[in-house]
Structures are given as C-alpha cells and as structure tokens.
C-alpha cells in the first residue's frame, strides 16, 4: 500500500520513549511549584535533532516524528522554550552558525520565545536564557540576549506564566527565518496545541468517570457526555489534519503551505474550546488554582501567540495526493 496513515513501529517506539522521558522529567504535577523548565532532558533525548539528518547528529527521523513528539510535549505542558529551541537550531544552522546550533540542540544554550510588546519584546520563560526567538507576524528572528537583563513583569493569572520585558533595542539579531522555518513553526505550535486539546479532553473524561453526583458518575449525564463528545471531535479533526500537514511538509508536496495553514487556523480554536469545556466539566475545582486544567488554558494562550497563521484564502486549495516522481512511462490507453 502506498498510502498508509498507521503509525510505523519506529514511530511508536520513539513516542513510547518520549512518553517515558516526559513522565520522568516533565510530570504535569511539577507546575504546582512555579519554576522554569530546563531543556536539558529534552535535549538529551535528542528532541531538538529528531528531524536532522544523520550527518548533523540527527536520529534519521523526519518532521512527521518531530510533530508527533511536540504533541506529546503539549500533553506535558513543556515550556514553549521547546518550540523556540527547535526553531532556533534551524535558524542558527541556516546562518552558518553550526557551533551555536549544536549548543542549542545540546541544551547548553537555552532559547525563550519573544513576542512584540510595545516597542520592545515580551519574553516567556526567559530565566537563564541566552537567546530569544522572536515571533513577529510571519517573521522569525533569533536574538542574542547577551548581558541584557529582561525586567520581570507579572504574567497572566498572577504569575501563571513567567513573563519579562526586553527593552527596545536590546539584544542583537543574529539570524532570520525563511518560509520553511515559518512552516515548521506553524506545524510545531499546532502540534503542541493538539497535545493540549487531547490532554484537556482526557482530563475531563477521567474526571467525568470518577466524580459522582446524584448517585452516579457525572459522565452518565448527557450534558456532560456531549461536552466530552465535542472535545473528542475537536481533537480528532485537528489530529487528522496534523498528519496530513506533517506528511505534506515532510515530503515537500505542493499543498504543504495550504495544509499547514489550515492546521494552524484550526489549532487555537480546538485548544481553547477543549480547555474551556474541560474547566466547565470540572465544576468548582476546575476554577481553582489547585486543579491542573487552568495550566492547559494558559499554555494554549501562550502558544497561540507564537506567530500569525498564513492567510488561508491566499493559498491555492489542496488537491488529492499526487506522485512526487515525474512520469517515466506514458499511461497505457484504457
């Protein structure tokens, strides 16, 4: 069969390994104490080099596996430094800075995301970061922070997100992204949003099976069932589109830009819908800082701001899959 959307054995293995690594180093319970994730464990796992070629120290996987890894990172609410780092490696490599790319991939240089904010930038999880990856509309740049000291500002939800301000003109732009980098950014950000949408669904479904009212699990009530079904729907649509977009991007198919733009348009909606609905399914505890669900909502808000989606109506509509190989023999007449 030339079309096959099953996960391969290799994919299952790398995802199982990722799940184990994430459970050990990035358990969601860690978020109950505010601290900034180090990328060391992810780097050691090879998370930044998954799609790199074997000469470049990669494991011979592709953008598809990297996207699937980022879905898992979304489940674990790993700091958006992971997306920033994955992109920064590519920008540095493209700018002929192999040493810098290696340091980022090894977790020796940490990269935080930066968003336009007033005349300067708002940095996310900047503690100890040497570099920032700026998402400005559809432009990506790598900024060396050098000795600049970003000024902490209170983050969303009374410190729920670690934000700081980089004054205008501080830092030095050392590399710029191209279209391919933007496509990768959209794919990885969307993959993480899918992880959040799935995790929110799973949290809500688990809670609906255990929390009892009126003598039965709340999941036996149809209003709750339908909330859960709606979350299932959002996650499934997004996950199918992620496969489609990742495959198109990996294979350099001519509908890649369209598939990724459609994905990036759907991802914020699915993540916000599912986190919002999951809070509702949890009732009072869902509104408390004690439950984990609000972390998913806030992380979704961060990820959504990482770059703007490409204008979907400007792209030619996708067609059915076609062969990437030029024809060698003419078709036999029917």
């Amino acid at each position: 069969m030339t079309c096959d959307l099953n996960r391969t054995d290799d994919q299952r293995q790398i995802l199982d390994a990722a799940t184990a690594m994430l459970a050990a180093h990035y358990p969601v319970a860690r978020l109950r104490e505010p601290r900034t994730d180090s990328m060391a464990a992810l780097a050691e796992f090879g998370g930044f080099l998954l799609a790199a070629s074997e000469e470049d120290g990669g494991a011979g996987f592709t953008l598809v596996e990297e996207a699937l890894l980022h879905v898992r990172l979304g489940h674990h609410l790993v700091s958006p430094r992971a997306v920033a780092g994955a992109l920064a490696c590519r920008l540095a490599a493209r700018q002929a800075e192999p040493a810098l790319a290696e340091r980022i991939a090894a977790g020796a240089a940490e990269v935080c995301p930066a968003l336009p904010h007033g005349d300067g930038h708002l940095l996310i999880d900047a503690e100890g970061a040497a570099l920032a990856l700026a998402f400005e509309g559809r432009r990506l740049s790598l900024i060396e922070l050098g000795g600049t000291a970003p000024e902490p500002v209170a983050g969303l939800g009374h410190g729920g997100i670690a934000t700081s301000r980089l004054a205008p003109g501080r830092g030095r732009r050392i590399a710029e992204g191209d279209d391919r980098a933007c496509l990768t950014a959209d794919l990885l950000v969307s993959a993480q949003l899918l992880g959040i949408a799935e995790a929110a669904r799973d949290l809500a479904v688990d809670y609906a099976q255990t929390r009892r009212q009126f003598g039965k699990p709340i999941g036996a009530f149809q209003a709750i069932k339908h909330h859960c079904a709606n979350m299932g729907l959002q996650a499934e649509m997004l996950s199918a589109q992620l496969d489609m977009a990742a495959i198109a991007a990996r294979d350099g198919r001519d509908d890649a830009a369209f598939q990724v733009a459609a994905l990036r348009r759907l991802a914020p909606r699915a993540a916000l819908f599912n986190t919002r609905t999951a809070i509702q399914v949890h009732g009072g505890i869902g509104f408390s800082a004690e439950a984990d669900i609000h972390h998913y909502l806030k992380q979704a808000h961060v990820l959504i701001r990482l770059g703007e989606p490409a204008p979907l109506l400007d792209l030619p509509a996708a067609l059915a899959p076609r062969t990437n190989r030029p024809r060698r023999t003419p078709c036999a007449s029917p």
Partner: protein
Amino acid sequence: MRLDITEDDECFRRAARDWLADNVPAAPAPYDGQPARDYALDWLATCHAGGWSGLGWPREYGGQGAPGEKLILWYEEYVRARAPSVLDCTFVAVNHAGPTLIALGSDAQKAFHLPRILEGRSVWCQGFSEPGAGSDLASLAATGRVEGDEIVVNGQKIWTSFADIADYQELLIRTDPDQDRHRGLSWVICDMTAPGITVRPIRNMAGVTHFAEVFYDDVRIPLSNVVGGLHDGWRTAMTTLGFERRTAAMGVQLALSIKVEDLIARAEPAPGSATAERLADLRAEAAALRAMTYRTVFRDSATSSDGSLMRLVFAELAQRIAQASMDILGAEALTDTPPTHDYLEAYSETIAGGTAEIQRNIIAERILGLPRS
C-alpha cells in the same frame, strides 16, 4: 505514515478525469419523482458502461476490488468534475444494500440483485424508521408473521427516502413477537410492487417529495428473502448502518471541499472582511474533514464509532457551509435557487441517519468510554 501514489494510480486518476469530463451530464439532477429515478439510473448505467461502477465491490461480485487509493482518487475526481451527488436514489443500493448482501446474503440473493444494482437497473430504499421508532430503532413495531415459507408483514414505516420510486426495500420487522428490543427482528428484502403496500409521499421543508410513509397490509414476502438469519435482523441492520456511516460517505464528504471552493469563488470576499474570515474557517474545516476521511480509509483501527465522529463533523460543517452560502446571497436568498435549496436541505444532515445527539452519545460512550445512561 505516507500518502504517496504510484504512477499507476496517477494514470487511473487521469483516466477518471478524462472520462468524467466527457460523461458528466450537463443538466442538473431533478429533485424527485420518476425524473429523479430516470436520471440517477441513467447516470449509474453510464458509469457501469464506462467501467466505473462498483469500484469498491469485490471482483467476484462484478466490482473492481479497488484499493483505498483508487477509491479516494475516483471520488476526488468525481467531486472535482461536479458529477451528480452520490446521495441520489441509487445510494442505498450501491452503498449499503449491495454491501450488506455481499456480507450476509444467500447465493441466490446475490446472483439476482447484485448485477441489477451495479448495472443501474434497480432502486432500493431503507425501511427502518417508524412513527414510534426513530432514534430508538430497536422499539420498532412492524410485524412479520411466519406462515409456511412466507412472512406476512403488517405495520408502517416512515421517512423512507425514495420509497415512491424504489423497486426493493431493506425492511426491518419484528418476526418473533415473544422477544423485544434488539432480539426477534429480521432484515428482509421487500419487493415494493408486492400487493398490500401503499406508499404515501411526504413533502419536505425544501418542497421536495424525497421521502414517504409506507403501509404494509398483509404483505407476503418469501422466507428466502431474509438476509442474515431469521430473527437475527439486528446484526444485519448494524452491518448496513456500518456501511452507511463509513466509506459509503466518502463521496459526500469530499464534496464539501468543492462546495467551499465554489462558495469562495462566488463570494469574492474582501481580504480581512468578516466574510473572508468565515470562509477561511470553512476552508480549514473542510480540509480537516478530508483528512479524517483519508484516515478512515488508510488507518487499520477505524471502527464504525469513528464513523460517528466523521458523520457528525460532516453534518455540522455541511450546515455551516449552507448557512454561509445563504448569508452572502443578498435578496436572492429568498428565491428558489440551488444554494437556497441546498440550504433548506441541509437541515436534514443532523437528523437523517442518526441525529447529532445520538452520534454524540455514541462518541461519548463507545469512543471515550463514559457510562451508558
């Protein structure tokens, strides 16, 4: 995970595209009645003569045994050519009656019916729903009394699409009066010309007589018309619904992308306008529905519950597209045009074939594992 097609597939696509370009009828399909029947059977016969009918059916039953790649390519080309909607009066026969017979029918049933279906010589309808049994299909009350080698049927069906123009019916009746709910039912082939059958067409809100009430007054059906075992009709019915909710819907689902493209072309929205944003959302959702359709074809784990997910995404998206199409029309929205007709027809999407609420129950209970209510 890959979506590569071979050169051979590419030739298949080219052949499909060329054939469709030469053969898709220029006139739009009539909405109902005998003209709708003639048009649909003509088109199916044309497809058959061209070698394009029964692509997904096994070869031993006159089909082409085409793999998923070819089915997808065929339907992609089919909708791209704006060929007649696959949801016409041949849909039941080709997409679920035929496959049900292939799965559970007797040799005689297969030998008689399958060629008639593929060659565009018979129309089938589905007699499941009753006035008292809609979402709760298992509560159906139409009875079949076994007398010698015949079953004598009494009762009523309703909402039977194309009953007025059908030759045969998938008829679900209670043959064992001592059993209730899912037990004691039988799925039989009912000849719509049999004495004792009265068909009373019902006009729908779009002004079309698409479905009908069917009354059975001592209708005699040979026992040999039972499909899948006497009193074992629920299993047969679930087989039928499984086909209906899965690959049968491929052509209908892929057609939505084309509807969105046509709508964008017609609307010419100003960049950044609210209409542009809305159309971009629809375009993205249609892409995702397409991706889900591919998943059900190219992933082994797809089940009929996954069909519920897809069916629901499809139904609600079809309604949003129809609504958007209505909204951009201006005063023309009040006239009888194809978009306004489609808009009204779209109200049925979340009702027919299992309501949206029932699909959500299925998703919650069978996919997510929440307790049965």
